[in-house]
Structure formats: C-alpha cells, structure tokens
C-alpha cells in the first residue's frame, strides 16, 4: 500500500468513526472524577450573589475543546445566580470570552452590567494579576464596551480579590500558572482551571500540592460536569465520538505493531 493510501485509510477511518458516532447521537454516561466533583460542589455551594472571576486565557484555535468547558462552568454559575466578572489575559480570548458570556447569559435572562460584566483584555499578565489584587478598577478603569467600571452595578463593592469567591481560568496553555503563583499564593484566592486535556499533566503537580483548587480537564471533564449539572452539551455529544476515536487509534497501534514485527521477522529470515 502506498504511503498516501495508508494516510487516506487512517484519516478516512477516523473521520468515519467520529461522524458515525455523532450520527448515532447516543448520550454517553460518564462518572464525575473527584476533581470535577470538587469544582462542581464548590460552585454549587456558593451563596446566590457571590462573585466569581472567569478569565479567558486561551487561543481561538483551541475553541472546539474550550467552548464546552467554558459553557458548562458559565451555565452553572448563572443557574445558581452567581455574579460573573469576565476578563482575558490572552488577546485572542477577548472576543471569544465576551461572546461565550453573552451567549450563556441570554440563556438565563441575565443582564449585562447587573449580573455579569466583561472587563476585556489586559496585556502583561503578571502585572495585571497583581494589580487586580490591589484594585480591579485601577487595572480595568473601563469594561470591554467602554463603560467606566465605577458605573457598572455588578462592580459595586468589588475592590479586589477579597470580594471574589473564586478565579476560574479557562486555558489551553500555561497562563493559569500565573494565577496560581500570584493570586493563589499571595492573595490566598481559590483558583480553578478549566483546561484542554493536553495541559492536564502540566497542572497535576499544582493540584497535588493544593496550590490549584480543582481542575475540569478536556472534553471528558466538560461531559462529566454537564452530567452533574443535568444539562448535556458539547462535552456529552462528543463522548461517544471520542471513545470510538480512541478505540480506533488503539486498534491502529496494535495493527501497526503486528505489521512491524511481521516485517522484522521476515527481514531476519
């Protein structure tokens, strides 16, 4: 088989597996991991009106994986009538953050300015994070839409992290490390990470040491959270496809190894 044909078989097979899994539209039950359960329980137990800060620290290219994670956390917060302060420390996450917040808010009839606000992007992540520890208004004198922060009702009484119950960093990279190092360590703020699966092992040491409060990781983490929330979304839709894709990859690895050892044996003979 030529190299191109092999490539076609591999990718074509993967495409078929995922498409067929989607067309079957079967809901895949997944039991929540302790970390997802911890994240869910913490937000669930927050009193109504509590303020959480959600930081959209990701690129646009990771949106397929990030979106279900962000949506399920935002839905949970809005469902429990929590107030949300949205920020972005990554330029590409700015417009996405605003869109996801607005989209979720409209599902729960939440009003901009009263129930949530998006303060926008700030460069120099470390100085922005540290600056908000002193005064959020000083770092963000205006919100994303140009309204002075002082005039936004949801910001009344909010000075710094002391009035915020938790920081949720939605990330596809190492930006949450800054939240952990500066907000977690210096301001003793709870930091939760909603991150792509590729980043899970990066944050495991912080999780084990207790510096990171909890993690919701990857499409599977989103699916587990959706099950806890009772609102199936993108995570659940993708679970059957992900399982079948993984099985397909495992089968390919086994076939590849069999062919490799067969060829090696033939070569020796």
């Amino acid at each position: 088989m030529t190299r191109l044909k092999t490539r076609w078989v591999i990718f074509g097979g993967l495409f078929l597996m995922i498409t067929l899994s989607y067309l079957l539209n079967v809901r895949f039950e997944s039991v929540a991991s302790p970390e997802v359960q911890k994240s869910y329980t913490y937000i669930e137990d927050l009193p109504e009106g509590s303020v959480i800060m959600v930081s959209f620290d990701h690129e646009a290219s990771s949106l397929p994986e990030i979106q279900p994670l962000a949506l399920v956390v935002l839905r949970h917060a809005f469902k429990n009538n929590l107030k949300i302060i949205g920020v972005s420390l990554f330029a590409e996450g700015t417009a996405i953050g605003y869109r996801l917040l607005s989209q979720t808010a409209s599902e729960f009839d939440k009003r901009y300015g009263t129930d949530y606000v998006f303060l926008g992007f700030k460069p120099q992540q470390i100085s922005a994070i540290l600056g908000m520890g002193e005064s959020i208004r000083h770092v963000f004198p205006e919100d994303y839409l140009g309204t002075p922060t002082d005039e936004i009702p949801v910001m009344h009484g909010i000075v710094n992290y002391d009035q915020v119950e938790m920081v949720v960093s939605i990330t596809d990279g190492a930006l949450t490390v800054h939240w952990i190092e500066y907000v977690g360590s210096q301001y003793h703020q709870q930091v939760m990470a909603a991150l792509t699966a590729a980043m899970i092992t990066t944050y495991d040491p912080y999780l084990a040491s207790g510096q990171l409060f909890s993690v919701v990781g990857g499409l599977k983490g989103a699916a587990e959270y959706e099950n806890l929330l009772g609102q199936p979304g993108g995570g659940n839709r993708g679970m059957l496809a992900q399982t079948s894709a993984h099985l397909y990859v495992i089968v390919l690895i086994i076939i590849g190894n069999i062919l490799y050892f067969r060829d090696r044996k033939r070569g020796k003979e």
Partner: protein
Amino acid sequence: MDIGLIIAGILTLAIYTFLYKDNPIYKAAESLLIGLSIGYALVIYWQTTLVDRLFAPLFWHGELAMIIPLVLGLLMFTRFSNRLSWLSRIPIALMIGAGAGVAIPAMLYARTLKQMSASVMPLVDGGGFNVEALVVIVGLLTTLAYFYFSREHKGAMGVAAKVGTYFLMIFFGATFGYTVMSRMSTFIGRIDFLLTDFLRVLA
C-alpha cells in the same frame, strides 16, 4: 444561513484538505488564519497597550510622567541601528530587572518550596501504609538520580537512574496520551460544527 457560518464551514474543510496533501486551498486558509490572528492581536494590543495606557494619559490627560515609558519604548527601536543599538539595553535591562524582581520570589515559593513540601508525605498515614507516598519518594529520588550527571550512572546510581527513566516515560506517555485526546477533541469539535451548524444534519 449566517454568512459567518458558511465562511467558517468552508475554511474548516479547506484546512482538512491538508489530509490529502499540501495544496493551495490549505495554504490560503492557513495564511488567512495566521493573518487574522496576528491582525486581531495587533489591534487589541494597539488599543489596550498604546492607546489606553500611553497615548490617552499622555496626550489627552497631560500626564507628563508617561514620557518615560514612551522614551523607553522608542529606545527599543534603536536595535535597527548598529551605531545606537546599545541604547536598547536600557529598556531591556529595566524589563528583565523588574520581571525578575517580581517573578523570582513568587516562583521560588510556588514552584520550588511548595512543590518540595508537597513531595514530603508521611509513609504511614492514619495507621496504614501510604503507597502513594512511597511512589512519590521513589519517583522523586530516581528521577533526580537520572538528571544527576556529576557521577557516572553505574551500580546503584545506574539502577536508580534506570528506574527514573521509567517514571519519566510514564509521565511522557501520560502527557502524549492527553495530547492525543486533546487533538481528537478539537477534531470532534469541528465535526460537531460541520454536522450541526454548517450542514445541519444534526439538530
């Protein structure tokens, strides 16, 4: 259908034409993605950094102290001149100095001290033997042994270093597995978009 959805759908398919082979359609979509990302970031940085934090305070609100960052910023451009490039060392030195001053204490605490204290776990916990603590101790010491190059990896040191490589391989394997999972999720997300929003095959 929304024009944005049509463009997104066509561009998604254009990117996947790379699976056949490198081709002009893929190149065009790739260039568009890179150009848009850079252009978008540039506009955001221009507005939030230069306009909001420098031009507005300096020129509209008359904060003369902002001349200092303006001059320091302009000194960066002396890199383009062989004769004046030494001047760019001033803002670079300030940036590195300030950055190190802020980052080193925080990193030392969060990445070293806290991680060290988290690695020290009691072997006997609550009356029972703590297997996790044993794994952490063995993993920590043997991995450190692997990266200890002042002594030849022979005898006990060699065995420890060998065991350390297994721990490293487990870590790399887990990371690679998660990365594959992540890439699959991205692909699944695009298929979801194509079937649900673009082609409307699924409700």
